[in-house]
């Protein structure tokens, strides 16, 4: 282990005068799993984009196998055996999973043309080899869930037998079992001598898989460690101490009225789901990805139509034909995929933050600019969005900061019922802490919150009750206090274990 497999030396990168990276370095050996950690906007993704050949650095050096290299495109990196899964996924939405998996290396027929059959066959073989047969190679990427997209993206990178593999927040949209699967793949690659560099905001994961950790802060590395406890890491990342990650759970008032009630809600991937959400309550929804959470949230929000069952909002039965109708009834949804579902990436932070409250910000249809600015600034301040200014395009923010804008937008509304769908996805520890505080305080102030998370730990600490879904059915209902992440996971996978 004398020659490092991959090395970043004093990389600097600025976007229009704003430095994303100042002097960032790390070294990963062959057969090592190396974690890059840091706050949202610390520059992790920028560094990975540079290592993946997608962005040119302003200064510094990249060394692969001890040789300084100049990557003038992703293909140059591929030639050196370095493959990357970027944070903002790069699958093509209107093409099939198979086409995506085999892009640029499609099997040819004897005539030299791309063979669709062979493409499907090869894709199927790949999915089988990596044990992800639940993904249909014929499906359009647009139609599969975010977790599945992430999985496809990982399979694609891993299938090239990389010597170096960069994974930028690969677990942020995965649930426990999927994370286990990914770690299985990572371990296998590690045994084969591959060096894996990944980023994550989940400390437990980092601890369980990473051999070494490099901590970043404000565009530069502050140290590489083999053994470091969370508090210390957070202090290094943020420059301050985060006391307890989770706020204490305030018991919900006993006689709180029901704000939202579903009775035998059915639809695609949804069977006879019933629950009541009370004022001041955080009702968790957990389980493996693809078991109906997405559909449940979309149905409640009027974005998908239920084939059966009823929905009651504050005592009145409702049939939402569109999200507009749901919003009008006081329901807000923070969706999972910020890239396609929530944010207008080319528009400014200000425009995005104020989108949901345009009505309040306008008089006679004309926007009141100062109020818009004030509202946007409030979002930025209260969630500590790292941005050069509220006029910056949202697409230029780091992934976690985009997520904060999206969350903040909905919190500005006066909606009483909040549907939070995996809102801490890709958010750093310090901000997670703030979001938890926020959720708890929203509940205390009388909001009713339906809370889905792919992180069972989070559900266990934050929710009054947790519904665990399996195959579109509520498989278990757990009550606080005393919920543990293990309870949730085991309720979610009980059948799989039995099988």
């Amino acid at each position, binding site marked *: 282990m004398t020659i490092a497999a991959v090395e970043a030396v004093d990389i600097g990168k600025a976007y229009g005068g704003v430095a994303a990276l100042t002097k960032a370095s790390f070294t990963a050996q062959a057969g090592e799993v190396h974690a890059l950690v840091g706050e949202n906007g610390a520059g992790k993704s920028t560094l990975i984009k540079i290592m*993946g050949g*997608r962005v040119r650095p302003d200064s510094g050096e990249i060394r692969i196998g001890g040789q300084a290299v100049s990557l003038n*495109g*992703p*293909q140059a990196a*591929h030639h050196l055996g370095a493959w*990357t899964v*970027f944070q903002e*996924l*790069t*699958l*093509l*939405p*209107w*093409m*099939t999973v198979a*086409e995506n998996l085999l*892009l*640029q290396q*499609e099997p040819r*027929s004897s005539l030299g*043309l*791309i*063979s*669709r059959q062979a493409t499907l066959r090869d894709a199927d073989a790949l999915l089988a*080899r*990596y*044990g*992800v*047969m*639940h*993904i*249909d190679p*014929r*499906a*359009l990427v647009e*139609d599969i869930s975010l977790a599945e997209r992430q*999985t496809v993206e990982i399979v694609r990178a891993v299938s090239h037998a990389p010597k170096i593999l960069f994974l930028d927040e690969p677990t942020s949209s995965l649930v426990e*079992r*999927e994370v*286990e*699967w990914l*770690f*299985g*793949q990572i*371990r*296998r690659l590690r045994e084969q001598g591959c060096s894996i560099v990944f980023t994550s905001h989940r400390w437990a994961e980092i601890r369980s898989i990473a051999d070494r950790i490099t901590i970043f802060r404000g565009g530069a590395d502050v140290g590489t460690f083999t053994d470091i406890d969370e508090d210390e890491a957070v202090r290094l990342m943020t420059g301050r101490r985060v006391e307890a990650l989770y706020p204490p759970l305030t018991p919900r008032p006993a006689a709180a009225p029901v704000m939202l009630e579903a009775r035998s809600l059915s639809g*695609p991937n949804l069977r006879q789901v019933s629950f009541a959400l009370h004022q001041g309550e955080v009702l968790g929804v957990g389980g493996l990805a693809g078991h109906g959470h997405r559909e449940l949230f979309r149905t409640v929000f009027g974005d*998908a*139509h239920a084939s059966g069952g009823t929905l009651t909002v504050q005592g009145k039965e409702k049939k939402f034909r569109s999200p507009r109708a749901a919003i009008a009834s006081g329901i807000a949804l923070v969706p999972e995929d910020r890239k396609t579902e929530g944010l207008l990436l080319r528009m400014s932070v200000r425009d995005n933050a104020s989108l949901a409250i345009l009505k309040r910000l306008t008089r006679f249809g004309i926007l009141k600019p100062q109020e818009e600015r004030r509202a946007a600034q409030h979002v930025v301040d209260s969630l500590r969005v790292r941005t050069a200014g509220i006029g910056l395009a949202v697409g230029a923010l780091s992934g976690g900061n985009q997520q904060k804008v999206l969350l903040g937008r909905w919190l500005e509304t006066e909606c009483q019922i909040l549907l939070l769908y995996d809102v801490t996805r890709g958010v750093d520890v310090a901000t997670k802490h703030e979001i938890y505080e926020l959720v708890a305080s929203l509940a205390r102030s009388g909001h009713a919150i339906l809370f889905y998370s792919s992180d069972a730990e989070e559900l266990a600490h934050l929710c009054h009750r947790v519904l665990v879904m399996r195959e579109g059915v509520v498989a278990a209902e757990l009550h606080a206090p005393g919920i543990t992440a293990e309870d949730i996971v085991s309720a979610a996978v009980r059948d799989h274990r039995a099988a």
Partner: protein
Amino acid sequence: MPIPETILAASGPRRSRLSHALTQNIGLALVVALLVACIILYCGLYIATQHRLPGGYELTSTLNNTMPLAFAALAQTLVVLTRGIDLSVGGVIDLTNAVAALTLMGGPVSTTIWTIAILGIGALCGLLNGVLVAVGRLQPILVTLSTLSIFQGIAIKILPQPGGAMPPGFTGVLANPNVPLSLIYIPLIGILWAIFRRTRLGVSVFAIGNDAMAASSHGISVKRTTILAYMLGGVASACAGLFLAANATAGDATTGDTYTLTSIVAAVLGGVSLFGGRGSGLGALFGAFVTVMVVNILFFAHIDPLYQTFYEGLFLLAAVIAANVIGQIVRRRR
């Protein structure tokens, strides 16, 4: 052998091939349905007013009149798929039509050579568009609007007076007035499209239309693909110019103008998404036939001339809305 923990799901539910094929090609399926409906309606009207079935003449003339639009729609599709738009389609048709009028008059050898040269002119026009868009990083709509005027200007310059006389052999092959020879061009376009779709270029065109950024991180050259797409579009526009000249038996440097708009209409009817990345040349081809069938239907419905365009617009609007609604229902129901 995979380690157990590396298996997430050893099997999974798979929807049938047919159901995938249908939902993923809903645009194409709908335009075919629309075309069939149009043909039935047309035949019904025809029989009711003429007391006989439409025959070889009707087929031949409809085919010959549609081929230029079919190629123009194909040209538009190639560009729209890259998330661009080509307003210069009409200009390229004008130009190639004018050159055809000036050059196509000799024997079969010279006609063949000039035909190839005219296709080359189309490619050059596309090259200019493509380079301006891809390398110059300019908006396709601005680039092609400007080149539209440029191509129109050159066309008028070289052929100020409409004229020329296409050799009968040329007309006989591209727009034979007596036998429905053009029928062979439909499967031909279909085959060419299928081949295109199965080349790396074809996949790249779709990929950059999906997400240029993502495509480039998989090593697809956005510049090269864009330029080639515009060039192929230019060649298809040149084909439209040639078929137009053949059908008219002469050239006119202004008759291509209307194709800019009608090519967009035909492509959209054919299920090509103006946001890029979705659609097929075959759909655009059928879309072209639908627009011509609409003219036929309105003809035999004997509508007040002042209302003909109104009904035509209404019909197209209804068709696009219906396609959209049905498409959404199909997608939702899965």
